[in-house]
């Protein structure tokens, strides 16, 4: 069961939609409305890069004076800092990342998700209905996210699709974040490869010549946005995970083309896959901090659009880190790796896979004997995410907080030898690692920075300086801070 606190349930009950979450962020000083007029380019990306640099306290930013888009509203940075995530989970701003990690791990459940159904004619997402004359370029305040992107991307849509051969299976209904490039007024490409659930649905539809209908949800519940980017099992529902984590309801309704969507979302774009059609897509500045090149991607045609009155277009800045993408998916990337490992190795303490979607990860554990950490590392590489993402993996002891890089560097400095490094070459890798010689292939590097143990004859018995810790030290730190504030006056 979900192990969340009463307070966090109270918070979760108040957050049923993006708008509710923006109100919550506003009440905590984590939301600003940009006061000046902005041009779509380069103003929006400049502001979002500057805000995104502050991974601890960066606010969500609303733009409602975008030149040439009178009356349109766009928001980004909603998941732009760990304080925004803390607010969603019912914690104070500035809560350490490690605490947020353990909180999310404790909530990792799909048991008894609260997913009430709202009839479509009562769902606020259907306040405005468009059935013809679609034009994405006038409907949404689109802008070029990075200067050399091939178009005006939608970077934070949650896309719902169903297995075309098992269309009544709620679990096999997939919700994922796939980058979307509007192509025509009523067409767009969607970047999904065969290993994605969505890619599987497209291939299956083509093979059996059956239609594939999708719902592109914009402006979603903040927990949905986190889980749409989380690797969950093929037959598990992202809606169930999101509602399970919140411990509070997320209302669903049906889109006009028959998919489950959020009833309180800002907008849904209904579309159908055009079999066999591929169009140039990209480049797009991706999470490794480099552009993925032009490729030929599948195409969808819009069949209907519903939205709330005065809809908010939620988008994301993504590129060379730190960006909102890193904060959005970081903890939800770390938690499932931890969950798999913990079952087989209870010695595992924490997993930090925050960096570039886990291209570099750090795992802490209570080592039992020499070489133990290396074997746990190898198991991490065979988790669903580790398989292609965990490129560099650092193993540390339980006395090191993997979310505190000063401590990780200490372990690297004093607990590694040349033979603690393993390089596994010619393994599976991600397509968009810019250092890959062959996209999709690469190395896994394991650095065992745990202390040396028996039967190793030397290293483990060094006397580590005992660092005073606990309440007394915390109180002293607080006292010093207040004395310093006094001295600055």
């Amino acid at each position: 069961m979900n192990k969340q606190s009463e307070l966090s349930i109270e918070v979760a009950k108040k957050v049923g939609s993006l708008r509710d979450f923006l109100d919550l962020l506003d009440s905590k000083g984590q939301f600003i409305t940009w006061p000046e007029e902005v041009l779509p380019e380069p103003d929006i990306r400049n502001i979002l890069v500057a805000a995104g640099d502050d991974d601890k306290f960066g606010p969500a930013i609303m733009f409602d004076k975008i030149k040439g888009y009178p009356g349109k509203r766009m928001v980004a940075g909603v998941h732009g800092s760990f304080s925004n995530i803390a607010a969603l989970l019912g914690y104070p701003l500035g809560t350490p990342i490690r605490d947020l990690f353990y909180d999310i791990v404790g909530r990792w459940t799909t048991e008894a998700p609260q997913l009430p159904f709202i009839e479509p004619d009562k769902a606020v997402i259907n306040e405005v209905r468009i059935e013809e004359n679609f034009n994405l370029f006038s409907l949404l305040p689109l802008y070029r996210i990075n200067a050399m992107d091939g178009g005006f991307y939608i970077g934070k849509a949650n896309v719902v699709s169903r297995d075309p051969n098992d269309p009544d299976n709620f679990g096999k209904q997939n919700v994922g974040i796939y980058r979307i490039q509007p192509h025509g007024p009523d067409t767009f490409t969607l970047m999904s490869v065969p290993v994605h659930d969505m890619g599987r649905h497209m291939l299956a539809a083509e093979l059996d010549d059956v239609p594939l209908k999708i719902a592109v949800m914009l402006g979603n519940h903040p927990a949905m946005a986190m889980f749409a980017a989380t690797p969950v099992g093929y037959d598990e529902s992202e809606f169930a995970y999101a509602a399970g984590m919140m411990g509070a309801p997320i209302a669903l309704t049906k889109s006009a083309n028959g998919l489950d969507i959020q009833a309180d979302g800002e907008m849904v774009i209904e579309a159908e896959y055009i079999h066999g059609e591929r169009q140039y897509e990209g480049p797009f500045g991706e999470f490794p901090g480099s552009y993925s090149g032009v490729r030929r991607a599948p195409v969808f045609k819009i069949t209907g659009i519903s939205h709330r009155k005065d809809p908010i277009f939620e988008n994301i800045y993504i590129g060379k880190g730190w960006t909102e993408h890193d904060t959005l998916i970081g903890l939800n990337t770390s938690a499932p790796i931890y969950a798999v490992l913990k079952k087989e190795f209870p010695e595992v303490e924490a997993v930090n896979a925050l960096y570039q979607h886990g291209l570099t990860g750090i795992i802490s554990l209570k080592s039992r004997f020499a070489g133990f950490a290396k074997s746990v590392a190898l198991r991490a590489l065979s988790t669903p995410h580790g398989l292609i993402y965990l490129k560099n993996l650092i193993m540390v002891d339980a006395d090191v907080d993997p979310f505190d890089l000063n401590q990780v560097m200490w372990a690297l400095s004093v607990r590694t030898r040349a033979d603690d490094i393993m390089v596994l070459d010619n393994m599976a890798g991600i397509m968009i690692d810019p250092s890959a010689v062959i996209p999709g292939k690469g190395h896994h590097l394991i650095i065992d920075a745990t202390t040396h143990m028996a039967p190793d004859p030397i290293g483990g018995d060094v006397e580590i300086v005992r660092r005073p810790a606990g309440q007394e030290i915390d109180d002293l730190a607080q006292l010093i801070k207040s004395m310093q504030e006094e001295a600055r006056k």
Partner: protein
Amino acid sequence: MTACPRCSNSNATVFHEGREGEELIWTLFGCPDCYFHWRDSEPAESISPTKRKAVFQMDTSHPEKYQLVLPVREES
């Protein structure tokens, strides 16, 4: 018809005009050949054919140079 800053074909058309009241602020174009979209108010590094880095230009006469994201099933 307008020339595309990326593939230099001349088939681009207007997709949307951004206005404030009567005033035209920018025009948004789309190219039906390489699917580049741009606004005439953007910085030159994005929309000027001479300022854009060569690596970002496209030659649409060689589609085979661009990888398929999802394989297309061969008709049997």
